[in-house]
């Protein structure tokens, strides 16, 4: 599918040398293997899971297992392909069973080999490579393929799409789309179901303009009712994706490659990619060619047996009691039943169908559905809460006091309880509305009605994507694995769509009964050094490590450098050693190397320091002259009360700084940024304190200080808060009678949080002292990139007060001293590097042939 030559692609989960066919001591060439021969056709999620379940039941001694897979790859998590397409996940991370895994478990993997037909009389499998393989028991797990609706001009030859047309089923499809996305601008996605919307969102994330063409009258019509679909459409469109409903693509405009499509109503849409995600069809050719009964899928009974007693079918290719499934949860159940039967663990095991409850994130919107989505009888109760403006649509269908269906769109907080009520028919609250909303004002499960993790039955499925039950998690914890990350690695819980991560964490915590070991890697300061911040700081101090390369050599596993750890370490070393830190330019992010913020076209911005937002005519004149002289494409007043010169060539930076004669405003660093102020007592008729002067003094004292994340402050002259002090990392508010309130941990960026009142003090000097102590405490204790709005609630206001106001840990003198060391180490980087480059070519352009700047000139 996708028309991409497979041979050129690396094998996913393969061995480095690309070995794909393996032989073992026990295989039949020796003539001593007395085991039965189990052959599995299809190495997808179902086939591989059957093998795993068989091995888990000791089936390795009973069976010599051979798996045929048409794809050359190991087994990978197909449901993660949307994440790979979105660039959120690397393809190597979605491998479930690598070629090595098969080898290690004595399973013969015939990867890249398609099975043609089975001779059920001779019990032999004929493969496309001409081989014949005998079996005693055979499992068909051939899955599905994309359904390709008819349209003219779609194919270049019999079995090859026009270039630019893609299905969305395999890793090779995904790779081909990623490659195409890098080169193209417009995509049309056919299909407004789960897959189509995921593809649309992912492609849009690569900067493509995307339009979705959906034949149904509303999006996700398999799962949602029309009202829910309409709300989802709004959410999807608000992302900038155009949606066409109730129409089809009838023609692909070519001829050499995709140029656009024509809709049923005659409209044409330009496009250079066409992605077809209009549904799936079971792959049944092998069964058909072998004379096995096929309707929509391969027909199986409750023991997953086809009409041939030694041939079974599982997964999306199977049709059981008239149902063909298109989700992974039923695959897990079927694989367990089949393994019980094959190994004789439970000879009476039966599969009775799956009640599919799905919880997904579709194009960034949470969706959970189970059972029916509309009332079916007059006596059915139907409760709907619809908030189109927030993109929320919730409904439940209740019959005879039992939940028979629920649809949650945009808000899935209630999904755990509803899934359980749906699966087990647990009693429902009298007040039906509490099924959908907490009436206890956000108090959540404390109303006693919603079961906590303790009450969840052991066999209830926690991770639908990977079929992991609460019991599986508890067993893993009991076997000694007590980190959340460790349990996730072992059971794969939470490694699918990720929507159950919170629940997994709760269960691990509950099962470990307070013994949860924090995930070590989670607590490391930087990913490349296995130490939490306090231990890392202690080691750096004890061993006198003055440079980033010295830290790697002494503390990283194998002394290995790690690119993504360098910036955090540079910041930490500067804090610890002040002026004694040995600078290494390669350990700095580009912004810190050239003291400007890199722009999308590789140019930089220049933001001179304008303390407290107060400037002078002379400064403004100089800025204006410089902007003209260097043809600065945009001059902008920033949200931080100063002036930004954007789109400056790297090679112009030093001369510009020199002409400006102003220090750097540090608008690029993880460092102290700005102190916004209001006009205060000098001019404002309400001013209660000289906020302007205090802001300037704060900025003068703490300018340029590096920290785990940005530090932005503000001082206002009264509680009218004109410079937004309540929502700053440190915000200072004059309240009259010479008093000042100091707030910490406020935010109004990606997160909005009102700061916590740390103290009310009675002089500007006291404000400066307390600010210094808070900032230093934060610098020493916050995680890399943790802003104060996360740090303050994590540590707790009480603790911070105890340390900073009462000297509860006896460290105030150290804090003062640590801050003073950094203040003494301050030098203006523009003055310094501008004159004497730190390394050769520090300001050489990095893209010599491109005309810069590319950003629009205003």
């Amino acid at each position, binding site marked *: 599918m996708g028309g991409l030559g497979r041979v*050129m*692609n*690396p094998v996913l989960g393969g061995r480095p040398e690309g070995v794909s066919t393996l032989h073992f001591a026990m295989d039949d060439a020796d003539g001593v293997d007395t085991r039965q021969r189990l052959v599995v056709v299809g190495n997808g999620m179902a086939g591989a899971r059957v093998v795993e379940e068989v091995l888990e039941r000791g089936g390795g001694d009973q069976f010599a297992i051979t798996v045929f897979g048409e794809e050359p790859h190991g087994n990978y998590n197909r449901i993660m392909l949307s994440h*790979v*397409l*979105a*660039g*959120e*996940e*690397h*393809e*190597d991370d979605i491998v479930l069973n690598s070629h090595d895994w098969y080898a290690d478990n004595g399973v013969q993997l015939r990867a890249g080999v398609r099975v043609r037909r089975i001779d059920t009389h001779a019990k032999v499998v004929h493969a496309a490579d001409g081989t014949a393989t005998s079996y005693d028991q055979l499992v068909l797990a051939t899955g599905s393929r994309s359904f390709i609706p008819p349209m003219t001009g779609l194919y270049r030859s019999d079995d090859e799409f026009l270039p630019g047309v893609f299905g969305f089923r395999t890793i090779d499809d995904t790779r081909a789309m*990623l*490659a195409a996305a*890098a080169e193209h601008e417009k995509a049309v996605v056919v299909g407004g179901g789960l897959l189509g919307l995921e593809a649309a969102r992912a492609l849009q994330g690569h*900067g493509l303009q995307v339009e979705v063409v959906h034949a149904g009258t509303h999006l996700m019509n398999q799962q949602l009712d029309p009202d829910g679909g309409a709300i989802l459409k709004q959410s999807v469109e608000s992302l900038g994706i155009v949606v066409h409903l109730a129409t089809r693509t009838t023609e692909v405009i070519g001829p050499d490659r995709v140029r656009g499509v024509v809709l049923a109503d005659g409209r044409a849409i330009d496009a250079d990619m066409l992605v077809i995600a209009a549904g799936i069809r079971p792959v049944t050719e092998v069964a058909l060619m072998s004379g096995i009964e096929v309707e929509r899928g391969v027909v199986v009974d409750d023991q997953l047996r086809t009409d041939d007693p030694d041939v079974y079918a599982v997964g999306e290719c199977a049709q059981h009691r008239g149902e063909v499934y298109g989700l992974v949860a039923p695959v897990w159940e079927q694989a367990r039943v089949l393994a019980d039967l094959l190994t004789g663990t439970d000879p009476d095991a039966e599969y009775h169908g799956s009640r599919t409850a799905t919880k997904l994130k579709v194009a960034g919107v949470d969706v959970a559905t189970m059972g029916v989505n509309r009332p079916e009888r007059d006596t059915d109760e139907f409760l709907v809460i619809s908030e189109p403006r927030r993109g929320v649509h919730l409904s439940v269908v209740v019959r005879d006091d039992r939940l028979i269906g629920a649809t949650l769109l945009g808000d899935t907080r209630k999904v755990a309880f509803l899934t359980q009520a749906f699966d087990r028919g647990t009693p429902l609250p009298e007040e039906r509305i509490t099924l959908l909303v907490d009436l206890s004002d956000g108090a959540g499960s404390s109303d006693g009605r919603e079961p906590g993790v303790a009450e969840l039955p052991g066999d209830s499925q926690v991770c639908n994507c990977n079929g992991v039950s609460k019991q599986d998690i508890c067993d893993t914890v009991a076997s000694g694995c007590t980190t959340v990350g460790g349990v996730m690695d072992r059971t794969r819980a939470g490694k699918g769509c990720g929507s159950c991560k919170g629940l997994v964490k709760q269960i691990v915590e509950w099962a470990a009964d307070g013994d949860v070991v924090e995930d070590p890697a989670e607590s490391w300061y930087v990913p*490349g050094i296995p130490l939490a911040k306090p231990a890392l700081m202690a080691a750096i101090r004890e061993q006198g490590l003055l440079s980033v*390369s010295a830290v790697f050599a002494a503390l990283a596993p194998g002394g*290995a*450098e*790690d*690119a*993504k750890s*360098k*910036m955090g370490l540079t910041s930490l070393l500067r804090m610890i050693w002040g002026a004694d830190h040995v600078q*290494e*330019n*390669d*350990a700095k*992010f*580009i912004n810190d*190397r050239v003291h400007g913020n*890199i722009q*999308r*076209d*590789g140019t930089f911005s220049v933001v001179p320091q304008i303390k407290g937002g107060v400037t002078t005519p002379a400064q403004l004149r100089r800025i204006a002259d410089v902007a003209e002289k260097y043809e600065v494409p945009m001059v902008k007043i920033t949200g931080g009360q100063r002036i930004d010169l954007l789109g400056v060539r790297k090679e112009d930076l030093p001369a510009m700084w020199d002409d400006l004669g102003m220090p750097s405003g540090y608008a690029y660093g993880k460092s102290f940024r700005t102190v916004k102020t209001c006009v205060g007592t000098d001019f404002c008729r309400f001013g209660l304190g000289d906020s302007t002067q205090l802001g300037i003094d704060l900025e003068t004292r703490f300018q340029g200080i590096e920290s785990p994340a940005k530090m932005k402050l503000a001082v206002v002259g009264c509680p009218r808060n004109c410079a937004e002090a309540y929502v700053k990392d440190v915000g200072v508010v004059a309240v009259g009678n010479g008093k000042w309130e100091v707030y910490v941990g406020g935010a109004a960026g990606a997160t909005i949080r009102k700061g916590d009142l740390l103290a009310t003090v009675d002089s500007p000097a006291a404000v400066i002292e307390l600010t210094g102590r808070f900032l230093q405490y934060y610098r020493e204790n916050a995680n890399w990139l943790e802003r104060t709005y996360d740090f303050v609630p994590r540590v707790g206001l009480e603790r911070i007060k105890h340390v900073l106001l009462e000297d509860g840990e006896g460290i105030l003198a150290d804090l003062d001293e640590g801050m003073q060391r950094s203040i003494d180490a301050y030098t203006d980087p523009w003055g310094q590097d501008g004159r004497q480059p730190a*390394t*050769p*070519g520090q300001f*050489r*352009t*990095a*893209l*010599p*042939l*491109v005309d810069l700047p590319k950003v629009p000139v205003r």
Partner: protein
Amino acid sequence: MSVVDQSTTTAHVVGRVDDVPLGEGRAFVAGGVQVAVFRLRDGSLHATQAACPHAGGPLADGQTDADVLVCPLHLFAYRWRDGASTSGAAPVRLFAVHEEDGQLVVDV
């Protein structure tokens, strides 16, 4: 997945080894092609296309370690070994580069 797959290449002297500080990268033009040359702290030399396959970021301004090069714009990483992106972008093109009498020689 093309790596060093040119059948015919020409060697170009693009500058001096000292032009690239230890651990950093610098951009050059080799036979009309923009390349980014890196000198890792272990002394090894690497060369890639100068513009990031993701959105054209200046790779010479990126950060490196023994395994990967990280683009400064959106922090996508590319493996030295084969140019593949570990973040799902298209691979970066690699060029052979070596030192000759203090000169940097890139095969394009």
